[in-house]
């Protein structure tokens, strides 16, 4: 399967999961809202250029926004993590090119510890910015802090569990492809 097709399928699956399952399950608590659709941006191949990352991030966020009727909210947060992602990838991946020939970030390609840091930082940024924008219009400061921490926690839990339960088949970068 080509990268393009894979990612288009992923896009549809992640949006569907977020809109029809995670946004519809009865809430455990008003602070605990699982959000994992942005994993699509985290899983994009390394080869995507920084500019296209931003554009894809914007489109992903906006698509979700039109479902949840908050135009621009998720788009802003997605553009932020799409902008920060290349810096983190540079920091966390091995410098030797010869050792490193995976196509996209995953627990097995860059190691569990760096991958967890990568996901944690971007999750925190995404939720922090998203809930900050919501808080600007409504809510108290304490709500904001608790909500950022609890949503980051539940999202991290879901992402890492998902990573263990459904390991992605890794694609190597080869000369022929």
């Amino acid at each position, binding site marked *: 399967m080509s990268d393009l097709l894979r990612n288009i399928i992923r896009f549809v699956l992640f949006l569907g999961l977020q809109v029809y399952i995670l946004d*519809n399950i009865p809430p455990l608590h008003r602070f605990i809202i699982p959000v994992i659709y942005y994993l699509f941006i985290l899983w994009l191949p390394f080869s995507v250029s920084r500019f296209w990352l931003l554009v894809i991030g914007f489109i992903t966020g906006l698509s979700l926004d039109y479902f949840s009727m908050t135009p621009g909210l998720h788009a802003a947060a997605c553009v932020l993590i799409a902008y920060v992602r290349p810096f983190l990838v540079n920091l966390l991946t091995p410098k030797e090119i010869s050792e490193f020939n995976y196509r996209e970030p995953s627990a097995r390609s860059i190691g569990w510890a760096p991958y967890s840091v990568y996901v944690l930082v971007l999750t925190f940024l995404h939720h922090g910015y998203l809930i900050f*924008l919501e808080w600007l219009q409504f809510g108290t400061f304490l709500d904001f802090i608790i909500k950022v921490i609890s949503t980051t926690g539940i999202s991290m839990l879901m992402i890492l569990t998902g990573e263990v339960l459904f390991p992605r088949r890794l694609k190597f970068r080869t000369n022929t492809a």
Partner: protein
Amino acid sequence: MRNIFLFIRRYYTFISFLALQVVALSMLFRYNKYHRAFFLGKANEITGYINSKYDKVDDYFHLKEENLRVHRMNDSLINLLRNNFSVADTGSIVVTDSMRYDTSGMKQRYLWREAKVVNNSLLEQKNYIQINRGSRQGIKDNMAVINSDGSIVGQVVNVSDNFSQVMSLLHVQSRVNAMMMKSRNSGTIEWDGKNPLFLTLRGIPKSDLIAIGDTVVTSIYSFNFPPGWRIGTVKEKVDDKSTNFYILKIKTAANFQNLQQVFVIENLQKNEQEKLDKDTHKKVDEINKRKQ
């Protein structure tokens, strides 16, 4: 000049990042103010189409509750039928949905349309409901939306050709006129964004004797909502020391978890009422000006 181009090329991604952020944020803040957003009409059609497909499957899980609600509603309507009353009693029936026009008949005030909920959110602080009727079916902004069991759900804020978005009562910007069914004192229903089971009612004076469990209905002063439809029941009474009003915690009558069939209600005399209201303000202002 050359330096400017060099600068733009060097910080190309950063500039595009800023540009996209500005676009996203301006969309967000504009939407919150006017409930209008760029490309919303077309996007609404697309999300509405996908939602209605998904909804076809989801429907089967709520059939039982829906059936019960419809049955109860039917029951309450049958009780209103004229042949249930003897002649002596007909004078005391209050028919809320129509207004006496002249001796020859009635003039209709509220027009009810049925609609189907295709998407619903509960978890956010701004919850919207999407229904499968739009401007082509005559839906306009500010129309009231009532659940199939006759409890208030929200009001329409935005319409596209075939779908409309409804601002749920569970929306921190939602304000609905309400009154106590017993005393007819009116106040405002709002939501504090916390628990989707409870609303807040403000503006009921402390002179009112309120008991836990009293029913709250839509006010007779509202332009959008037909009067007398259930909003909820009083769950808790907070004595606000700083004012002369209670803050009441209201348990919602509608079950927002499984909305399915709803009614959209149009006030056929709303334009007239609003125009009169506006003209009155204008007239009084002019009189005041002339006095000065």
